[in-house]
């Protein structure tokens, strides 16, 4: 009767653990799919479409026809470089002609003048008009000659969703109506023109069309992705996705730890029953079939309940996010989240419980007569570990689709899972050896922890794993996002002042200083184009990366800096020095990768018609999202000084000071102002969104941790009751009983807290260093939270358990 009751209890815990796993997967899949859609839309805004193709030739009408058959909206644009005259000086511009559907994703924002109010618009310039960006702000209200046609510059573009590249590295934008393009006569055979076809529609339709496109695309035509979007936005979106991936993996680890602990407990409870059945001649195969049926029934029920719970739990997050962003999360109409959850439940249940149950079916029938002390064989341990690893790996691959982050997280988790029992066992043994003279109370406590029959070391390891996962989510949530936010604090420069003439630098600095406006160090800029790498013409080099072709036609702003700029890091080579016969240049890491540049390579560039030669002295990582002046190329001062330069600086200009900007522009007419506050606000919104969603996963993780705790308490309950009963029979007082239980749990909590903090610190460092490019700072909070929460939770649990255990009659020891 007792066995039956215990078995039902054991299955019940395993059932709850499975329900939690399935509901976590359902909920996280639904939520991440929905947040993913939101992020995709944000990403689409960066392309102004869901998908686009680009070519230097006009596209066949087949593309448009097929896209329309697939139910997609289509828009086209033509971009080209041209020149306009500003105050009789020729100025290079980036002209873009768009049709009425532009942009398919995101919205244009315009203003009447530089300091005027911004308006979101769904319009494009009317025929005969153009819109210009802030670099040409002075032209608003005047007329502009483009080729053979004159246009009225009617508005200022303050936000263009698909404007790629680094902020101040771009030629001024002139946006016109596509229907006016032919009249300018600018597009003639041989012109360097970029044609774009943009598509948008339902995800499934876009997916179908993309497959068609990949089959039918012609040479010279290219499908564009986020790589060409603004680096600040792209990095923010990519990092957010990584945060989510990590949070899901860690939450799942917790849920699976719960299944593992409860499966072990179930197996222990089943052993006497199996011994009895085997003594009666029931074969191992029959027993295995019996348990498979039990597991199957448990999985089906847990899946149904888990999916229902998961479905409901997506709503609290939706309410929170809706409230925060004023936008509803997009709906997901797919069975995939539910099927994934069911499959993960099956994998976790089978991976963690089958080896234990197979083991249980091998319980020797002799156990029915007496306890057979059977130390765990290597083979048995190996089969359990291998099965668990395969299950975790399969789940991660299913959910993360071979993401490197998921694999790395798995490696970390496995390392923890393998090392923790060894470390905890070693620690307990070390403490045991330190004193032999007295047994009660410390040695008694440690003996209890060491006794394999109670599985305390495994429970502690399981709970440590859970706590490590929770701490890592907390680290990601607080430390990493916090660090990210500090990289993007309030009050950083929101304007770039570019095209400053050398003779105006001092005057502009003084102008800003007089008005209390904070400004950065001015940077000298020389515009240069890459011509040769190691004396080979760039157009003759066959680059592996297709993006290289764009980079070699790009005009770069080469600057000089005495010291490595803030939040730049040398990843190879040495910072600039004057000790070389050739000038030196430091290259941004991404550009170096695209152009396959290495330290020591010789670059030849053209500044107008003059050559500029330099040797690559270092390769640098750049934190693009910090909105500071960031550069692809930084060279020696002498090199820059030998060419005509303009200057750049960034400044924090409050709304109240914006009136002074007009004065500045009047006094220094060559200066162009770039307002980046809108872009900064968008990146900040992504960070905030990530933070709120992670909070939700944190709550889920805590809920699973409670189940692990219950399982942990349940696991040793029977043994604890018998031990209490024995201590009672040996005349222990209730005070002694209380003390032993509370201290045992406190000791467990302290050990768990200590090791969890240590592992979480190492794992947090590894993740921030290798996956998030965020500087890791040792957090005292992680140690405090870990030690205090584990000790407190376990001693409270111990107190609650002791209430029951200390009331156990000493007669139990006679009856057991």
């Amino acid at each position: 009767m007792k066995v039956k009751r215990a078995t039902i209890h054991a299955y019940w815990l395993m059932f709850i653990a499975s329900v939690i796993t399935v509901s976590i997967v359902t909920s996280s899949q639904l939520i991440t799919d929905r947040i993913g859609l939101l992020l995709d839309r944000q990403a689409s805004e960066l392309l102004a479409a869901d998908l686009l193709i680009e070519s230097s030739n006009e596209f066949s009408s087949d593309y448009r026809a097929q896209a329309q058959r697939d139910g997609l909206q289509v828009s086209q644009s033509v971009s080209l470089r041209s020149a306009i005259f500003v105050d009789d000086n020729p100025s290079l511009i980036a002209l873009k002609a768009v049709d009425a559907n532009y942009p398919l994703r995101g919205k244009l924002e315009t203003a009447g003048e530089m300091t005027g109010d911004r308006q979101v618009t769904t319009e494009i310039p009317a025929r005969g008009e153009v819109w210009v960006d802030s670099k040409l702000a002075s032209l608003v209200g005047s007329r502009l000659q483009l080729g053979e046609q004159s246009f009225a510059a009617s508005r200022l573009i303050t936000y263009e969703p698909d404007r790629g590249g680094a902020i101040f590295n771009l030629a001024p934008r002139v946006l016109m109506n596509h229907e006016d393009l032919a009249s300018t006569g600018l597009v003639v055979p041989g012109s360097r023109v970029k044609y774009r076809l943009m598509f948008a529609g339902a995800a499934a339709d876009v997916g179908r069309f993309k497959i068609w496109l990949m089959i039918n695309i012609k040479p010279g035509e290219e499908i564009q992705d986020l790589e060409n979007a603004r680096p600040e936005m792209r990095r923010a979106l990519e990092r957010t996705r990584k945060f989510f991936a990590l949070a899901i993996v860690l939450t799942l680890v917790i849920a699976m730890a719960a299944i593992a602990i409860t499966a072990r407990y179930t197996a222990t409870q089943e052993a006497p029953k199996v011994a009895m059945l085997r003594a009666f001649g029931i074969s191992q195969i029959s027993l295995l079939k019996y348990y498979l049926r039990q597991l199957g029934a448990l999985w089906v029920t847990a899946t149904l309940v888990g999916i229902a719970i998961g479905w409901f739990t997506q709503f609290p997050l939706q309410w929170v996010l809706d409230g925060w962003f004023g936008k509803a999360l997009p709906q997901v109409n797919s069975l995939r989240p539910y099927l994934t959850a069911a499959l993960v439940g099956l994998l976790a249940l089978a991976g963690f419980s089958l080896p234990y149950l197979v083991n249980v079916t091998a319980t020797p029938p002799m156990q029915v007569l007496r306890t057979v002390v059977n130390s765990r064989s290597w083979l048995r341990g190996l089969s359990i570990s291998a099965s668990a690893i395969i299950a975790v790996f399969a789940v991660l691959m299913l959910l993360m689709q071979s993401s490197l982050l998921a694999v790395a997280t798995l490696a970390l988790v496995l390392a923890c899972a393998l090392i923790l029992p060894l470390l905890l066992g070693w620690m307990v043994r070390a403490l045991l050896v330190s004193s032999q003279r007295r047994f009660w109370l410390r040695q008694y406590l440690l003996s209890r922890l060491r006794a394999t029959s109670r599985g305390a070391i495994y429970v502690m390891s399981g709970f440590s794993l859970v706590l490590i996962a929770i701490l890592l989510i907390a680290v990601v949530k607080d430390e990493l996002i916090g660090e990210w936010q500090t990289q993007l604090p309030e009050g950083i420069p929101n304007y770039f002042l570019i095209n400053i003439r050398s003779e105006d630098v001092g005057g502009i600095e003084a102008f800003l200083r007089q008005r209390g406006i904070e400004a950065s160090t001015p940077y000298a800029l020389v515009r240069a184009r890459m011509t040769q790498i190691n004396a080979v013409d760039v157009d003759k080099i066959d680059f592996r990366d297709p993006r290289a072709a764009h980079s070699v036609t790009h005009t770069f702003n080469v600057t000089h800096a005495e010291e490595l700029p803030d939040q730049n890091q040398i990843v190879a080579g040495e910072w600039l020095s004057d000790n070389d016969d050739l000038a030196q240049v430091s290259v941004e890491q991404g550009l170096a990768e695209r152009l396959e540049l290495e330290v020591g390579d010789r670059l030849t560039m053209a500044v107008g018609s003059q050559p500029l030669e330099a040797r690559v002295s270092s390769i640098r990582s750049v934190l693009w999202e910090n909105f500071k002046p960031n550069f692809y190329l930084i060279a020696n001062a002498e090199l820059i000084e030998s060419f005509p330069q303009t200057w750049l600086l960034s400044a924090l200009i409050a709304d109240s000071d914006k009136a002074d900007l007009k004065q500045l522009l009047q006094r220094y007419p060559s200066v162009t102002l770039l307002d980046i506050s809108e872009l900064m606000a968008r990146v900040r919104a992504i960070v905030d969104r990530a933070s709120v969603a992670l909070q939700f996963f944190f709550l889920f993780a805590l809920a699973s941790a409670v189940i692990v705790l219950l399982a942990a308490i349940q696991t040793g309950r029977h043994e604890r009751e018998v031990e209490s009963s024995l201590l009672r029979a040996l005349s222990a007082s209730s005070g002694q009983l209380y003390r032993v239980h509370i201290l045992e749990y406190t000791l467990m909590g302290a050990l768990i807290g200590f090791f969890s903090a240590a592992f979480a610190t190492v794992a947090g460092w590894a993740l921030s260093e290798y996956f998030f490019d965020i500087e890791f700072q040792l957090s005292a909070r992680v140690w405090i939270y870990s030690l205090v929460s584990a000790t407190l939770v376990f001693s409270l649990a111990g107190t609650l358990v002791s209430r029951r255990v200390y009331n156990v009659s000493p007669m139990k020891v006679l009856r057991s």
Partner: protein
Amino acid sequence: MAENNLCIALNQVAKTVDTPEGKLDILDNISLQVEYQEAVVIKGASGSGKTTLLGLMAGLDQASSGDILLLGHNLMQKNEEQRAAIRSGQVGFVFQSFHLVQGASAVQNVMLPLELSGIGDAQARALASLQQVGLESRRDTLVEHLSGGEQQRVAIARAYATRPRILFADEPTGNLDATTGRQIADLMFALRDQSGTTLVLVTHETELLERGDRQILIESGRLVSDG
């Protein structure tokens, strides 16, 4: 029988428990007396109530009615905490399933009741007790690594370490083979002879039954014979 020589006295003791089917009488109207240094053996069929009787005599459980005197204390007026204090240092136990603390060594197991009772020099006394049962060479071995017979020896050493006035044993040879069982029985009675401890044991084993000074037969919760 002199009143002051009584180690245990039961007067019209009954034990009733609640079951889903209603009240169930486990023991009914039991009266018996055990003198100091006596060796009393309780026998009976399975389910007859002999383990319950042992538990009541040792103060491990509370009777439903009647009076129980243990070492001069009326257990019916004591709660579990007070009964534990009476047992402390004066009562020893040997169980069928040994009930040793897993993860602890032989000597640590023997030290446990000594330290719980606040008896000084626990280690030296535990070692002496282990020597008496012939296990001094296994003092630091974890109990789960000992054989069944050795484990029961540790349990006996633990029971005698506090030099109790009474030793209660519940089927002490029940989990052992015949030869080991005989050795354990020899050991228990040898130690009892040395120490003069009162012995109350429940058993089916003929060997043990014959060694007792008295045999008490319990059938269906009633005392059938005593002598």
